[in-house]
C-alpha cells in the first residue's frame, strides 16, 4: 500500500432515529481490492453511497487521494459505481451506455469510439456494441455496467453486490474475471458483498461489518485464521464454538471449562482474566478424528459419538455429539471417514494452535 486512495474518518450516518453507520474509520490503499462484507442491513450500501456521494454522512469525512469530497455531489467525485442490477440506460445501446461518461467529458468522437472498443475488449463483449441492454443476459449486462463504470478511468471503482443476481457458476466465473481486470488495471476497487466465499476469493483485504460498524479488517487469510470475535469466526467460514469460563491463566496458556470438557488455548495478544466468559473456535477442517481412544492430547480433544455423516461430493462433513450433547462438526476428504457410521465412538483432537480463544461479544 503505497498511497491511500480512500480515507474514511469517523463517518456516522443516521436515517431519522435509526443509525445505519456508527463511527466508521477505514483506509483503502491505491490499487487495493477491498471487500465490505456483512449480512443484509449492516450498512454496506450506505457506506458505499457515502463514498460515491449519494448520501451525506451525519458526521465524519471522506477523502479521495487526499482531497476532501464529503460535500461534493456524485457527478464531481472521481468514483464510479457498478450497481446491483446494472442500471444500464435502457434507451441506449451498449456503446452509448459505455460512452456516456466520455460524452459528458466532451471527448472527441473518435477517441470515444476507441475507448469504448477497448472497454468492450476488456470485458470480452466485442461485437455487442449495438445491442440493446434489454437483450443482454444478466452476466453480460453486469459486464457492460463494469465497462461503463471503468470507461472514464475513475480513481476508485465502487461495486454494490454486482454479482448477487447471477447464478452460482456464472458468479464464480465473474469473480475471477473481475479480479483479473482489477489486477490488470491496477485500479482501486471497493466491493460490497454479503457472500463470505466471494470476499475470500477476490479480496486483498476484507472489512467485516456488523450493525453499522467495521468489526475487523485484514487479509482474507488473517481474518479466517485469526478472527477477533465470535461474530467474525462464525460469519467467515463454518466453525465450532466451545463456550465456557476461564478457570486458569498460566502465562500464554489459558484453561477454559465448558460443558463438553476442559480445554487449553493460547491467548495470543488478548488480555484475559480468570472467571471471564470466553469461547474457543475450532475450524471443522482443523479437527482430526480417531476411533481408538488411545493417548489423547489433554486439553485439545473431546470424545463423542458419530451423529450424522453428510456427503458433499469431494468432502464429507461429520457431526459428532459430545457427552455434553454439544454437536461438533468436522470436515475432510471422503476417504478420511471410511467405515464410520452413526453411533461409532470416536475421539476428536486438534493442534494447540488450531484453537482460537475469543472473548464473548458484548452487545
Amino acid at each position: 500500500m503505497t498511497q491511500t486512495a480512500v480515507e474514511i474518518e469517523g463517518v456516522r450516518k443516521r436515517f431519522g432515529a435509526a443509525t445505519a453507520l456508527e463511527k466508521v474509520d477505514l483506509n483503502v490503499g491505491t490499487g487495493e481490492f477491498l471487500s465490505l462484507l456483512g449480512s443484509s442491513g449492516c450498512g454496506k450500501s450506505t457506506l458505499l453511497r457515502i463514498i460515491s456521494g449519494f448520501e451525506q454522512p451525519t458526521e465524519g469525512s471522506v477523502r479521495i487521494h487526499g482531497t476532501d469530497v464529503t460535500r461534493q455531489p456524485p457527478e464531481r467525485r472521481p468514483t464510479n459505481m457498478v450497481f446491483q442490477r446494472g442500471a444500464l440506460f435502457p434507451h441506449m445501446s451498449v456503446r452509448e451506455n459505455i460512452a456516456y461518461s466520455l460524452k459528458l467529458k466532451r471527448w472527441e468522437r473518435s477517441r470515444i469510439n476507441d475507448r469504448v472498443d477497448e472497454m468492450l475488449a476488456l470485458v470480452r463483449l466485442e461485437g455487442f456494441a449495438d445491442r440493446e441492454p434489454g437483450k443482454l443476459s444478466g452476466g453480460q449486462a453486469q459486464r457492460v455496467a463494469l465497462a461503463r463504470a471503468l470507461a472514464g478511468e475513475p480513481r476508485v471503482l465502487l461495486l454494490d453486490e454486482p454479482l448477487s443476481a447471477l447464478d452460482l457458476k456464472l458468479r464464480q466465473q465473474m469473480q475471477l474475471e473481475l479480479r483479473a481486470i482489477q489486477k490488470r488495471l491496477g485500479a482501486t476497487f471497493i466491493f460490497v458483498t454479503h457472500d463470505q466465499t466471494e470476499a475470500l476469493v477476490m479480496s486483498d483485504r476484507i472489512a467485516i461489518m456488523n450493525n453499522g460498524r467495521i468489526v475487523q479488517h485484514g487479509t482474507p487469510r488473517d481474518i479466517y485464521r485469526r478472527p477477533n470475535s465470535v461474530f467474525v469466526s462464525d460469519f467467515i467460514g463454518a466453525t465450532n464454538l466451545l463456550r465456557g469460563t476461564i478457570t486458569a491463566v498460566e502465562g500464554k496458556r489459558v484453561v477454559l471449562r465448558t460443558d463438553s470438557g476442559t480445554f487449553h488455548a493460547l491467548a495470543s495478544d488478548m488480555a484475559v482474566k480468570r472467571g471471564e466468559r470466553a469461547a474457543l473456535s475450532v475450524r471443522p477442517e482443523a479437527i482430526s478424528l480417531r476411533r481408538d481412544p488411545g493417548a489423547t492430547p489433554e486439553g485439545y480433544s473431546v470424545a463423542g459419538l458419530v451423529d450424522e455423516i453428510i456427503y458433499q461430493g469431494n468432502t464429507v462433513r461429520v457431526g459428532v455429539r459430545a457427552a455434553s450433547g454439544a454437536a461438533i462438526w468436522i470436515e475432510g476428504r471422503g476417504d478420511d471417514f471410511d467405515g464410520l457410521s452413526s453411533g461409532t465412538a470416536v475421539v476428536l483432537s486438534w493442534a494447540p494452535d488450531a484453537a482460537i480463544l475469543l472473548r464473548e461479544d458484548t452487545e
Partner: protein
Amino acid sequence: MGDDMVRLRKLLPAAFVGAVLAYLYAPIAVIVIFSFTTSPRLSMPIEGLTLDWYTSALSNSLISTALRNSLLLASVSALVSGVIGAAFAFGLVALKRPRLRASLLGASMLPAIMPLLVIGIALAVFFRLMHVQQGLLNAAIGHVLVSLPFVVLTMNARLETFDFSVLEAARDLGATPGRVLRDITLPLIRPSIIGAALLAAALSLDEFVVTWFNIGSQLTVPVLVWGLMRRGIDPSINAIATMLLALLVCLVAASALLNRKKSK
C-alpha cells in the same frame, strides 16, 4: 335429447356473452350506421348511403365553433394535465415514505370518484365568488381538474416499475441533475407522459357536466349536441357523435399503446 341438452349448455354462455356485447355496443352501432343513411328519419330498412350529414354538420357554423372549442379545451387539458400530472406522479414515486406516498396518491385520486355534478357546481360557485365570468377559461380549468387524477393514476402505474437507479447511474457517471433529466428521465418517461396526455384529451372531449356549469354562453361539441337534441333528433347529430367517437377511440388506443410500450 341428451345431445340437445349438451348443445344448449354450450350455447347458453355464448348467447349470454352475445347479449351483453349487444347491450354495450348496439346503441353506438345504430348511431354510426344512421350517420351514413340517406333517410332523415331513423327507420328500417336502410334506403341508401350518403356523407351528406357530415358535410352539413361541418358546414354548420355553430358546429364548427363547438368543434374548435372542444379541440382547444382538449389540447389545454392534455398539455396542462400531462405536465402537472407527470411531475406530480414522478415526485410521488420518488418519495421514500410509503405511507405518505399512499395518502398523497389517494388525495390526488379523490376528485375522480367525486360526482361531476358536485365538481361542476362547486367550480361555478367558486368562480362566482371570485367574480370570474363564465367562459372557456373556466371550462378549461374544470377539464384539467377532471382529467388530472387519471393522468396521475396512469403515470403512477407506469412509474412503479421505473428503475430509479438509472438516474443515480447517470449522476455517478458525471451528469448534473439537469443533464440527467434531459438525457435519461425524459426520454424514458416521454411515451408515458404523451399517453397520459392523450387520455386527458379524450376525457376533455366528451366532458359535459362540469363544462355545462362553467362555460356560460360558449359551446363545446357535447354542449351543442345537448342543445340540438332538445329540438329533436337531427341526423347530423349522428355524424357529430360518430366523428367524436372516432377521435376518442384513436386517442384512447394511442394512449394505451404508448403506455404499454416500454413498460417492461
